């Protein structure tokens, strides 16, 4: 897009503003005015700002920040503990299951052994002569 640029000899004439119809037209839409309470509200806001800047308030700010940080740390710690507890519980239950399975396996093997002892006394692998 082509941009309108001022002519090379462009030197704004202080009188030109007054003669320019665009300038006069802009005057027909003057600046909006603030309401009657604007100054009072702004002063109140500045006062609040001042309170926020005072040392006691700053200390209070620090205290609040630390409390908030402590709260987050406590929450985080609790979460980690809970997660660790769950993990340990899960691991121990898995271990118990494994132990149970091993015990069952031993029991099965033991019954199998006793069966073989009683039934296969003539098995070749038990033959001491071999």
């Amino acid at each position, binding site marked *: 897009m082509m*941009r*309108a*640029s*001022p002519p090379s000899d*462009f030197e*704004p004439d202080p009188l030109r*503003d007054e003669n*320019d*119809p*665009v*300038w*006069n*037209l*802009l*005057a*027909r*839409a*003057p*600046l*909006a*005015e*603030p*309401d009657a309470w*604007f*100054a009072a*509200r*702004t*002063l109140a*806001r*500045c*006062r609040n*700002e*001042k309170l926020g*800047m005072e040392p006691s308030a700053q200390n209070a700010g620090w205290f609040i920040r630390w409390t908030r940080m402590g709260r987050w740390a406590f929450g985080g710690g609790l979460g980690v503990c809970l997660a660790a507890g769950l993990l340990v519980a899960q691991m121990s239950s898995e271990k118990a299951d494994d132990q149970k399975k091993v015990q069952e396996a031993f029991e099965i093997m033991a019954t199998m052994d006793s069966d073989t002892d009683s039934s296969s006394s003539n098995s070749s692998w038990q033959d001491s002569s071999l």
Partner: protein
Amino acid sequence: MKKRVRDEEVARGAMGDSDAHDKVLMVEIARGDERALRELIEKHQGAVYGTIAKMLGDAVEAQDLAQQVFVRVYRAAGSYRATAQFKTWMFTIVRNLVFNEHRRRSRATLVSLSPPENETGNTGGAPGMDLPDLAIKTPGEAMLQRELMRKVDEAILALPEQQRLAIVLRRYDEFSYEEIAEILKTSVPATKSLLFRARETLRVALQDYLDLEGGKSGDEK
């Protein structure tokens, strides 16, 4: 011609007095004088609020931003060094806040839920704006005047932000080219160029009204 030069000198002298008074007020504000702060706010609220409202076209945002300007002035009172004109310095704060707000708005445009401008029910000026009473006689004239104001405001709002601020500062706040250049952090020739382009854009956008005004003044003659 001589009278004009003398008038300008008087105006400059008055401005100098006004600036010196602003600087005195800033010293008093730094000492915690609330009356000085009130005086400063009351003195500049019209220009600050009006400029921001023209720049944003939103009365509520303009109130908030104008308050922020004075809060910043108040906060900076302790460290304020009177190296430049007070008003120029204050309008640098206005510029920063307004341009930040533009950036924030341009980021938020995609998720805007506000109704289009022509559905807000406003009959004049930018949406929600309290326009000054111009003491117009007939309802027809009032309507025409409101429409003209709305069109002028829309044309200004359609300008790029630098041009918009330059034109508002020059036309409504009557800053010099040097002061506008300082506020916009640019050179004087660049400021003149910005103003030239802004005027040309406005001339095109408001051509119908310019013709109407020309016709009116021709009739009057």
